[in-house]
């Protein structure tokens, strides 16, 4: 496109002023937020779902489409999956869907032309909403469910036995006591496999912080919280809060201590069955 050297536009993607004006006009014409950054998946002029319209559309869908295309519009033996269809992908506010559906015979036996423009628009909102649920990995729509499949007794046995958890934890004190009341099962699973290094308000949890001890060839050892380490330098924050960097040499001894090392090693050996058993047990600690 154009050769642009210095642009100062709040509209992101390197628009020339004219292009911005044009794009804004288009966006406004389509009832969209002007100034939206066109950087997400799909076209910038995507259909924008109106939730109330989608709710009304669901009713039309149930009355006229559902037996052939299914509850989620993913198809049945009598009609194809609509959510990935080109008709819907090209559609903006029923401009493609409307003419297509008018050629259909509906569930009620009436012709497609009996649907009003308002009904078709509502159907368009409903169907785009189904598609949007799929986009973005469906994370906003689906949730991991059914994580509680383990055996509580086996979980208790593992924690007290092969898991060696009780060398650092007890069920009645510290981070495990009452943990089943604080987190959902899926969060329990995540937290015991990958304990976070931060606690409330994202503050560093001192019990989970990596420390380092640096011992020069001559002189006293210095310990502190590890800030950064590479082949050339090691930086720590000492007990007084002072940041200190040491240039690494063959004679400089550096020892790192990670309180979560046992948890990292657990990942090498734990089976999925043991994992689910532990979650069942932790969930019972209320």
């Amino acid at each position, binding site marked *: 496109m154009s*050769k642009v050297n210095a642009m100062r536009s709040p509209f992101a993607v390197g628009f020339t002023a004219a292009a911005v004006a044009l794009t804004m006009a288009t966006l406004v014409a389509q009832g969209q937020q002007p100034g939206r950054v066109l950087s997400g998946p799909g076209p910038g002029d995507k259909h924008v779902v109106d939730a109330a319209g989608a709710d009304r559309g669901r009713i039309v869908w149930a009355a006229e489409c559902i037996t052939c295309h299914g509850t989620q519009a993913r198809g049945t033996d009598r009609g194809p999956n609509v959510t990935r269809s080109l008709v819907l*992908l090209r559609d903006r506010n029923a401009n493609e869907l409307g003419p297509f559906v008018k050629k259909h015979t509906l569930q009620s036996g009436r012709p497609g032309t009996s649907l009003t423009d308002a009904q078709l628009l509502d159907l368009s909102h409903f169907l785009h909403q189904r598609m949007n649920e799929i986009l973005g990995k469906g994370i906003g729509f689906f949730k991991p469910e059914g994580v509680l499949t383990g055996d509580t007794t086996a979980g208790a046995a593992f924690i007290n036995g092969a898991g060696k958890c009780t060398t650092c934890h007890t069920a009645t004190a510290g981070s495990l006591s009452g943990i089943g009341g604080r987190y959902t099962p899926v969060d329990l699973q995540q937290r015991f496999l990958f304990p976070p290094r931060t606690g409330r308000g994202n503050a560093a949890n001192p019990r989970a912080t990596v420390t380092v001890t640096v011992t020069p060839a001559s002189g006293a050892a210095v310990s502190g919280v590890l800030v950064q380490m590479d082949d050339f330098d090691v930086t720590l924050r000492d007990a007084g809060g002072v940041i200190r960097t040491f240039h690494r040499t063959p004679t400089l001894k550096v020892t790192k201590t990670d309180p979560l090392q046992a948890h990292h090693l657990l990942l090498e050996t734990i089976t999925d069955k043991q994992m689910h058993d532990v979650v069942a047990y932790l969930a019972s600690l209320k």
Partner: protein
Amino acid sequence: MKRSLLLCLLLSAAVGTLVARSAPHVEPAQQLTGPTDSWPTYNGDYSGRRFSPLTTISATNVGSLSLAWMYRINLPQGTPAVRIAGTPLQINGVLYFTIPDHVWATDARTGRELWHHAWTSKGGIHLGNRGVAVAGELLYYETPDCNLVALDIKTGTERWHKPICDLDQFYYGSVAPVVAKNHVFTGVSGDDLDIPGYLDSRDPATGELQWRWHVVPQKMDEPGSDTWPNEDAMKHGGGMTWTPVTYDPDLNLVFVTTGNPQPVIAHKNRKGSNLFTGSIVALNADTGRMVWWFQSAPHDTHDWDATQTAVLFDATIAGQPRKLIAQASRNGQFFVLDRTNGKAIISKEFVKTNWSLGYDAKGQPIPNPAKEPQLDGALVSPDQSGAANWPPPALSPLTGLFYVNARRGFSVYYLYDPDDNPQGWGGTDRGGYSEAMLQAIDYRTGAVKWTHPWEGGSRAGLLVTAGNVLFTGGASNDIAALNATTGAALWHARLNTSVSNGPITYQLDGRQYLVVGAGDTLWTFVMNR
């Protein structure tokens, strides 16, 4: 003296047929020789080795590298993806580099901006752009809104653009095109809504389609269709082509590496191995006809695109001189194949993983169904970001090593959507814990010869030189140089942020330069001595 003579001999022997051959129509012969005064394609040459024959910078003097210039991108606040995640090209003393929707030309010696081109976007994912291809007077790049754009290399003005994919279907463009003979090879990206991937060959003069190879068969009787349950599944089967292809002029084969099948995580409606997703495929460059295939990630359910660069090299294995191709795949497996026929010579993990049950007769890994995503979660290694990802690997014929920035991660894969006909993703992973390291793999045996850990993580591309130096991004926002033979750390310089691409090198006026992107800044170092 003696040393450089020896290097020359070694080089001409080792680089062999791959680089010293015929000139393509569209571009000077330098596209095929190990680059010295230029870096004319994404990987430097067609082989994907990212190996430079230059020796001015060496393991003994790399500590004396100094800053030549830096160029910082200056775009309005809110511009998406201002991160140099592509590899610059350098031709006739001019550097060409990109971010999504933007291309710059700067003087390779001074960093002075010569021109800047900006594309008016209609949308699409703005994540990263891998760069440009150049043939003659034209420069080609892909836009997030699905266009192949050709610019005049002297002025940056647009000559033409051609749609190469459908934005409405959630495709987008990110890969660097590759030009060979009279073809521009363009791939596509998009993992949102179950669409089939393909590789196009286009006319360098007009952008017209010459042929399209569909990664997933589109009709029930086509080769590979027996690995899918039905035509609907194939038409939505995925397999994106978002890594620049490699090319062997002697065999006239293009090597394309393909992404994960779709739906990505949930997979009940795509039983089978899902060819030719997760594969290395050799195509005839002129016709697009498939010559052989090897599936590095059969029936993937972890978003482990197998699009990592397939690196071409020649070596003697068990007394036999062989034409070979190697990949360190996202799923943690390293493969060396015969590139004339796709037969596996080595199949081996380059980091420890927990998802496979061994290998089939072809040397392809067999996924363990228990480690597919589960409703109650399955602990899987590597995690979704993979043991390797898009950052390009490197291979040195002098050290006999294949280098890859690797990651050993763990996460829990959940199936969210138990429907018989899932779509999109229908699940994802949550995690996790990971360690980053550079793996130097002996390409004759597949054994990891040494590991260089990155405390705190690093994921950058690699460059290896005949000066026995390996360049990459380190863990402390630094560009780091390692001894290519031993992995010993030699030099580093801290940048504005972590290295975001693969470094390149070239020599102009007897001075060897090193260019690396870190976020919004291109950094160039030079050996003054």
